[in-house]
Structures are given as C-alpha cells and as structure tokens.
C-alpha cells in the first residue's frame, strides 16, 4: 500500500528542490515582517518617516561640498544636487538590500532555532521593506527633479527610457538580494566574510558611477567599469531621467543576465544552507 505523507524530511534535499509554493503559503508572514520592519524603525521618534529624507539630504549636501566644490568632479552639466540624489537614492536601495540580507542567518539565529517557516521569507521581507523606504526617498528625488525640470533652465532631458525604471529597480533589488543571500549563507560558517562586507559595499560604491558620470573615466579604463553590472543600471537610470549618461543596451542586457544568475545562485545556496545552518552558526 502506498502511503501518503504531507511532509517528508530527508537528510539532503536536491539542490534545486526549492519549495517556492511554501514561500507563497507564508505570504501573510512576509507582509507582517515588512510591517514590523517599517513600523518599528521609527517608533518613539518625533520626526518619524521624515528621517527617511534626512539621511539622503545630508549626504547630498556633503557630496555637493566634497565632490562638487572641493574635488570638482564633473556632473555632466547636471545640477549637482540632482545628480547626487539620483545616484544616492538608487545606490542606497542596493546597499541596504545587500547589507541587511547578508546577515539574515546570524541575526535571526534565535528565531530560526525555535520555529520553522520558509527562511527565504526573511530576506524577501527585507527587500520589500527597503522598497518602501526607497519609494519614500524617490519622492525626494522626484521633488528635486521637478524643481529643476520646471523652474530652472538646465540640460535635463527626460526620455521614454523612464519606462525602464521599474525594471531597473527590480534589477537593483535582485542583485542586492542575490549577493546578500550568498553572503549570508557563507558567513554562517566562515565569519571572515562579515568583515569584508562592511567596507566592501562602501568601496563598491566608488567603483560604480554613483557620484561621477561614467564619461569622466578615461576610455581605456572604461571597460573595467563596464564589467560591473551596477554601472549599467545606474547609467541607464541617469540617461532615462537626466538625459546624461552612457546607455548601452548590451550592457543592460549583461546586467540583467548577471542579476538572474546571482539571484538564482543565491537562492540555491541559501536553500542548501538553511537545512543545517543551525549546526554551524
């Protein structure tokens, strides 16, 4: 007689045995985690969500001063505040997705050790709650953008590429999540990576045209920057909204492919790690 079981636990799951249906079944938990993250961040503060604006505004002010006035780095004739805010807002989304998913296992070891639910819910909730933060910060960008577009005479030229914007955000999120998943899986056993991550993401920002346009890089070095998939996402974003940037369709396709690979790899490694991470964390 053949037996019917709802749950079968075996030592080793197949590498590609990823239970996405289960993740879907726990969608309520996903949204409650998002709610928790958003609600608790600014509890017992007076300014509340206004803090979401303060950080990018101050960063822009400092960048305008340091990179614009002191170092005099070109912004391709785009007003400096607008140029910096566009880079920072998008970059922040990537870096917070990356940083916050990268310590998923370490940070939630206590929770994971007590109760089972699909572990993927936690990094997904991080990506979604950061998306909310990103949306709020994007309003800031939109405000500054509209000001320069309608009230100042500048070189800004929006193009139809703006419709690529959602895709760009998804790619940023996918890449942040993918890298985060890989790092979180590896750090459960080898804690060394944690130290690398802390300054790694910061250094990565300087290797990506966030605070300078790609066009300022000498021709013979540009190929190095183009290897960085994030370059294409940021440059496309700037081309779409500001009309200044280096758009390359091949580059964008490369970045998209890169995102898919990193994300898939991340999910597979994460899925493998979650089975036994409690023993090594």
């Amino acid at each position, binding site marked *: 007689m053949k*037996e*019917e079981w709802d749950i*079968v636990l075996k030592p*080793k799951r197949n590498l590609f045995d990823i239970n996405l249906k289960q993740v879907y079944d726990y969608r*309520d938990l996903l949204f409650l985690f998002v*709610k928790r993250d958003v609600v608790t961040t600014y509890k017992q503060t007076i300014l509340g969500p206004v803090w979401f604006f303060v950080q990018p505004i101050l960063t822009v002010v400092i960048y305008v001063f340091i990179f614009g006035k002191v170092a005099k780095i070109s912004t391709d004739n785009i007003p400096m505040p607008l140029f910096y805010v566009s880079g920072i807002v998008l970059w922040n989304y990537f870096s917070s997705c990356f940083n916050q998913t990268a310590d998923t296992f370490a940070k939630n070891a206590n929770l994971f*050790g007590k109760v089972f639910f699909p572990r993927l819910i936690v990094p997904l909730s991080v990506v979604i709650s950061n998306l909310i933060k990103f949306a709020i910060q994007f309003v800031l960008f939109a405000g500054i953008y509209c000001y320069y577009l309608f009230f100042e005479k500048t070189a800004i030229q929006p193009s139809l590429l703006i419709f690529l914007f959602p895709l760009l955000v998804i790619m940023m999120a996918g890449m942040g999540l993918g890298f985060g998943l890989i790092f979180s899986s590896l750090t459960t056993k080898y804690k060394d990576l944690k130290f690398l991550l802390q300054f790694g993401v910061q250094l990565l920002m300087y290797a990506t045209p966030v605070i300078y346009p790609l066009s300022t890089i000498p021709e013979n070095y540009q190929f190095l920057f183009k290897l960085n998939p994030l370059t294409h996402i940021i440059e496309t974003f700037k081309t779409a909204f500001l009309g200044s940037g280096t758009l390359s369709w091949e580059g964008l396709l490369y970045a998209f492919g890169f995102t898919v690979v990193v994300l898939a790899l991340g999910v597979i490694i994460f899925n493998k790690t979650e089975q036994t991470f409690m023993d090594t964390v």
Partner: protein
Amino acid sequence: MSKDIAIKIENLSKLYRLGEIGTGTLSHDLNRAFAKLRGKDDPYSMVGQVNDRTQAADSDYVWALKDVGFEVRKGEVLGIVGKNGAGKSTLLKLISQITSPTTGSIKAKGRIASLLEVGTGMHPEMTARENIFLNGAILGMKKKEIAAKFDEIIDFAGCRMYVDTPIKRFSSGMRVRLGFAVAAFLEPEILIVDEVLAVGDAEFQKKAIGKMKDISEAGHRTVLFVSHNMASVKSLCTRAVVLENGSITFDGDVDAALQHYLSHGATDGVAEHKIFETDKNTANEQVELQSIGVRSKGKEYGDPMRVDEEIEIQIRFMKKVPENTIHTTLQVKDESGNYIFSLSSASTVADQEAKATGAKTFTVTIPSNFFNSTSFYVNLLFVQDGKTIALRVEDVLKFDILPKQAKLGEFMGKGKVPIIPQFPWQTDTKN
C-alpha cells in the same frame, strides 16, 4: 493500520561536530567534497562516537541521535523523556524542521507546529495586537485565522486593556501569557511541545497542561511532549519513549517507561557517591574528606531515592590530630539555597569517639517520609571542639527525592515545602 499513523520516523541519526567550528573546517569540507566526488561516503560520519557526555571524546564527531525510529498514531500523546544531553532537543529540532537529519527520514501527515519557546519573534516595540498577528504568522497561522480568533486570544491572555500598548511595557509574565495564548489557538494536526512550557507560575502551568490535554482529547490532534518533569509526562501522555545516549532504550506504556527511565537513565533523583582526592578544598592539617554518599537505606548508590524510603548519608574522612574532637555537621538546603535544617554528629556521637584519629565513617539515617520530593543541597562542616570550623565544603552533595511510586501522577514539581515530617498527632473529640 498505517492510515492512522501521523508521524513515522525511520533510522533517524544526527551527527554533530565536537569542539570549535572554525579551525580545520575548511580542510574537512574539502576532504568531504573530495570523498563525494569519488562517490564515497562522508569520511567523518564513520568516526562519530556514541553520545555519552560523561566520556572523554576520542573523535571529533558525535552521534547526537543514532538510528532512532518510532511511529506515532493519530491522536496519541507521546512523551519523550531522557536526561540532559540524551538527544531530546536534537530530536525535536529535527521533527520541527529546524535542522536536517544526517541520515534517516521523518514523514508526517498534516501541519506540524512546534512550541519550543513561547512568544517566538515578538517585537518589544510593537503592540500586543500587532504581536499576536506576527507571532501567529510565525507559528504558521494565516492572517484570516488569527483575525477570527483574535478576541478569544485576548481573553485567554487576559490583556484586553493593554491590547494597543507596546509589549516592552508588559511584565515578563504578561508576555509569556500572551505568547501562550497565541500558541493555544494554533490548530495544527501535530503539535510538538518542549518542557519550556512547564516554566512559569503554578496557575500558568496548570493552564498550559490543561490546554494541551484539551487539544489532544478534543480532536484527532497528535502531541509530542518532551520533558523530564515526570509528573506532567505521566498526567498527559498515553505512551512514552526513553532516549538514552542518542538511542531509544524504551518505547511503550508510560508507567513502564518512567520506571525504566528512573532506574536507568536518570541522574536526577539518583543516589550519589563522591570520592575525593586530597586537595586543599577537602583536606587540611586537621581532617581529610575521603568520600560522601547518599542513598536509600539498603539500596545501591545509583538507585533512585523516594519519599517513602529511609535516606542514608555516609561520610568517610581521616582525622589527623589527636588533641581535639571533630564532629561532622550537615547543613541541608532547599533548591533556592535556603537553609532548612542541620544535622550534627555531636548530638549522638560521644566525644571520646570524636577524638580518636584515623579513618572514620560517620553515617546518619533520615527517616522515611521526611524529605518531600524535590531537590536538596548539602554543606559539610567539620567542627573542631564544638566551636571552630576545621573544614567546610560547600554543596558537597546535591540530590533529588522522587515521589512515592503510587502517587507519581500527583507530583507537579515546584512550589512545595521541602520537608514533610510525620510527627504524631493526638486527637481529642469532646462533644
């Protein structure tokens, strides 16, 4: 028959690495990968040794569980007992999918919910209302289910007034109540409960146990209950398995299982005998403590001691100086370290005898039905000439007294007086 089986566990084993993870892991990992590449077994799983924490390890790996297998029928309440480190928690972790087994399989029908902790994942900054939803969802409930039971949960926890207050303002007891209230309204087909639920005040304990009984009696719910509180196992479970060094040594009727556990695996409640080497804590120029032991009269060291048995404490020591007398005093303390009473050999041993040098054995017998079923700590004092302390050994013994066999089910562990001496009562009825 197999239709009724809710959980089936076969050949379940779990290998753990001993010592620190870090140094050498990379080389072991590479070694493993190489073995896998050649299509061989994991080279480290061969060397794992039996899980006995008292033995020194001679390999780096240990089998926390080894070839465990049993079936649980639908509606059955299975108790899992075993001493600390026997593999209970590992088994729980495997069944509740927190970690994967090394070999073997677990098959189950229906949703599994595990209560290894109350109030898992609650956030102190969020209100009780928000936390009920969050905690419920973590335990596997849908938002709709929680919303439907929300009022019942609030009433069960008894915190309607504070429903919109962040739980960081709650007392810890209130938090536990809230957590348990959520758990109580879970409706999984299989519920796994750890003994942590047995903490908390008496009222809470009663509520928790009662609720679990309801759960198992009401529906076709299967409960796995892990504990070393024998009383609650006895009152709740219909069957029990005993884990010892990572393997099942008994599976069957609760009474028989507890009997087996008490006489084989348990260190709690076991008569203890300690032998001391000469060192500065247990010896000086005056005396040298050689051994101390506690057991039921007429039984062996290593047997359980019960309320209705006479308890014998035996001290062996060497008296070195002829000039003065040495008497022994035992200070008996309860679980929280409060002194209950002391016993001095000066009351019955003549001074002459106390003055003689050489190896001596002093034995004191405490009548039956004097100690209640709880834990005791003993300090040993060697008193010189009835005034100065020649040597003092703190907590030289710790022992537990078990309840009388017939009344095992009544014992709830905590909150009792430590001693229950039976002194004669006179009655005089005039009407």
